């Protein structure tokens, strides 16, 4: 066998392992994403082939669309609320289940992760039931303490209903980040803590001067991940629980895209909402990375 055929064989092998995957990925992921960006410059009802090029008009219209601003506000409200709630609880659980030598740590760990394997649709339905004004848990529970039967429409406040979506989102998200942080904490050499013990540093001191700095990389990844998954995917739970209502007050950008495109058939406008989601998530990623880089602790 000469060098030429050997090289040829190698190339054929590489091509046969690369190309099918790439074609697949190109047709069903890259092409739609690029198309999505392209559609955002058109007005298009989706029903006919007639797309009208309107340049940046969709984006100009968005500037004057109060629902867009509300949706962006809700998106960042959810990002902030989820980052705070999830990081606080996930860090607490991760520390409690690793550093304190609880006997049931493994059991709690397995239990806490369960919401992460359940479909968001199911989670949405379960929480809808908790919030249900007639037969829901929350009202029935509150009624135990009042004379009159409580019948609050938890998902129907004209304002602030978005707050009600935070508990399910946090509940569903914690396990994943807890596991991530547990792995990080377990990779810290035990000798660090032993040395701190000898020097008489308490748990709290050890947490701030050993655990946090040495898991900072994972904390950063977690925060970025919460941000991205919220901007890109939180609309599913919104859609299941409120469909963006009442009166569009819980709309987020993803759910508004879905409503505009698949309910109201403004596919061009929907696509331009998608464009903005991409831009927002990129900008926020860069901003957060810069913000958190300054806090990185040099470790020896």
């Amino acid at each position: 066998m000469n060098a030429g055929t050997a090289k040829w064989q190698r190339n054929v092998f590489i091509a046969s392992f690369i190309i099918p995957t790439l074609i697949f990925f190109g047709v069903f992921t890259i092409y739609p994403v690029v198309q999505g960006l392209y559609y955002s410059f058109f007005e298009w009802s989706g029903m006919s082939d007639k797309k009208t090029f309107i340049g940046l008009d969709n984006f100009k219209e968005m500037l004057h669309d109060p629902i867009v601003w509300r949706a962006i506000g809700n998106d960042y409200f959810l990002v902030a609320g989820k980052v705070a709630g999830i990081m606080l609880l996930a860090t607490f659980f991760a520390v409690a289940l690793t550093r304190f030598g609880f006997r049931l740590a493994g059991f709690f760990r397995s239990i806490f992760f369960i919401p992460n394997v359940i479909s968001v649709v199911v989670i949405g339905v379960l929480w809808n039931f908790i919030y249900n004004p007639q037969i829901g848990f929350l009202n029935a529970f509150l009624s135990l303490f009042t004379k009159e039967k409580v019948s609050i429409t938890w998902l129907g406040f004209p304002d602030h209903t978005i707050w009600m979506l935070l508990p399910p989102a946090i509940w569903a998200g914690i396990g994943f980040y807890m596991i991530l942080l547990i792995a990080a904490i377990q990779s810290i050499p035990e000798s660090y803590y032993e040395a701190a013990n000898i020097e008489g540093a308490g748990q709290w001191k050890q947490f701030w001067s050993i655990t946090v700095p040495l898991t900072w990389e994972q904390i950063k990844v977690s925060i970025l991940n919460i941000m991205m998954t919220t901007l890109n995917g939180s609309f599913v739970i919104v859609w299941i629980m409120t469909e963006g209502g009442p009166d569009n007050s819980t709309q987020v950008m993803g759910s508004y895209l879905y409503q505009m495109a698949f309910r109201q058939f403004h596919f061009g406008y929907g696509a331009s909402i998608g464009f903005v989601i991409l831009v927002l998530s990129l900008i926020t990623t860069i901003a957060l990375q810069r913000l958190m880089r300054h806090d990185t602790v040099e470790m020896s």
Partner: protein
Amino acid sequence: MNLKIKNPVAKLIIYAILILWGVSVLYPLLWTLLDSLKNNEQFFLNAPWALPELPLLWSNFSYVWSKYNFNAYFVNSLVVTIGSTGLALLLSATTAYVLARYTFRGSNALFLLYISSMMVPFVLALIPLFFLMNSMGLINTKLGLILVYTSSLLAFGIFVLIGFFKSLPKELEEAAIVDGASYYGTFFRVMLPLSQPGLITIGIVNILNIWNEYIVGTILINDPAQYTLPVEIGVMQAEMQYRTEWGPLFAALLITIVPVLVMYMIFQRQIASGITAGAIK
């Protein structure tokens, strides 16, 4: 050696919080089971935490299974999940292997393409996907769903498996080549079996993701005969506004959750490591 907390009050508080959270996770599952055995009357007259009255209405399960066609949705979900997981494993393992072991013109660009795609919101692709599948005649087909799901799983699989292949010693392949194995023989007979733990991890995570997927299913499927379980759950809950059948709804939730719970119990370790592997970029 782990530290013991000296202050018993602090210990008690921490334990209390852990137990409280554990209950908040387990209790909804328990009440899903209990409520799936009730009729409407019990929902409206009794407290939500009341136990179901006897006789237990196991008939709610057979009702959703046959009258609501959950037998069909279950099979649809199964076909779509297995189809896309299998196809995605094959397509991502081949590319990951080549990217892990060979350098060629464009190999780095290819790697970056897959990795950076994980940053792009999938919602962007929803509208064009609908029209693409429509023009290919794949709307309302399981094949259409399988193709889209497979593609959505590729980047994650490639990313994790590259790391896995890189961790395998090179000597194994060299030995195989010396023994006269072809490139394909080396991959399929030596490397693929060795990477089984990685493949299993990815496979399980993919199965969970696809089994639970809602939004793509809702957009690409509007023929009730082709619904997957999550799509039907969404439809069912929307219908609850004028057709109240709470017991069957909870039975439906349970049918959807039980398979993933069983998988979780069996493959707990792989799931935890697989799901977190994708996050550490």
